[in-house]
């Protein structure tokens, strides 16, 4: 079960290069063929500097940088028993290929709950604040994981 003493813990920040190819991979997997994500000229005509990252792109640095796996390991959560409970993003500005974003994960809440069927579970909420290479805030991501027991 999740280690309650880690509530409030901030983890080292991780840095992620926003790559054009990674954006393409993500929208291909989703099956979203909007040219906005992959065609710079189309994006410019729509008033963007370049192809913007799609709404759920922040899952990519979170998983690939190992920030979420690191939190899961440190909190002694059983990886096999995790379900994703909630996900929330607040967007302050666009991120584009070539941007270097940094995210600092923080465990904001660990709470035990009982499901309708009477099963006990831990709810773990992790917030990641992202900034770009100019130190400007670009987004906040809030993830709630459910560890079934």
């Amino acid at each position, binding site marked *: 079960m999740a280690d309650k003493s880690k509530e409030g813990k901030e983890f080292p920040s991780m840095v992620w290069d926003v790559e054009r190819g*990674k954006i393409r*991979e*993500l929208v*291909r*997997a*989703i*099956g*979203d063929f*909007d*040219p*906005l994500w992959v065609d710079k000229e*189309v994006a410019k005509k*729509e*008033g*963007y500097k370049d192809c*913007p990252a*799609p*709404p*759920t792109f922040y*899952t*990519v640095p*979170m*998983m*690939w940088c190992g920030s979420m796996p690191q939190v899961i390991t440190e909190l002694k959560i059983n*990886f*096999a*028993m*995790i*379900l*994703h*409970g*909630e*996900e*929330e*993003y*607040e*967007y302050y500005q*666009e991120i584009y290929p070539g941007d270097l974003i940094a995210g600092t994960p923080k465990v904001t809440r660990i709470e035990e709950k009982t499901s309708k069927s009477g099963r006990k579970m831990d709810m773990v909420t992790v917030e990641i604040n992202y900034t770009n290479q100019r130190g400007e805030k670009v987004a906040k991501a*809030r993830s709630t994981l459910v560890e079934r027991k």
Partner: protein
Amino acid sequence: MAKQIYFEDINIGDAMPALVKGPVQKLQHVMYAGASGDFNPLHTDDDFAKAVGMDGVIAHGMLIMGFVGQAITNWIPKKCLKKLGIRFAGMTKPGNTITVSGKVIDKKPGLIICEVTAMDEKGDVKITGQFEAALPSKG
């Protein structure tokens, strides 16, 4: 790609155009694992999924949230989207067809607040959530 829409053109109760996705395929789970970096074998390995009490692999919740993002940005330009928060209400299995729908539930100056739902062909809800978009005024 969404056309620019204006604050004055949107009313409480207006529907977001529905988006139908799928059927979701196991191959898509593999593609999503590689793209997102979420290699939990629950999404790609039937034997593993059965060992932890499932019938077989389930889709990444974030893939279904990706469908929700697609439905929104088909309707509202990406740059107008300010907030998107969802709760995962059910698991998606290979073969499920997912319909994303939504409607405007509130308006504040310059901002619309919408609810959004993703459900499968049987009406089982996979995601419920809300998003906020800042829309320009015709001025």
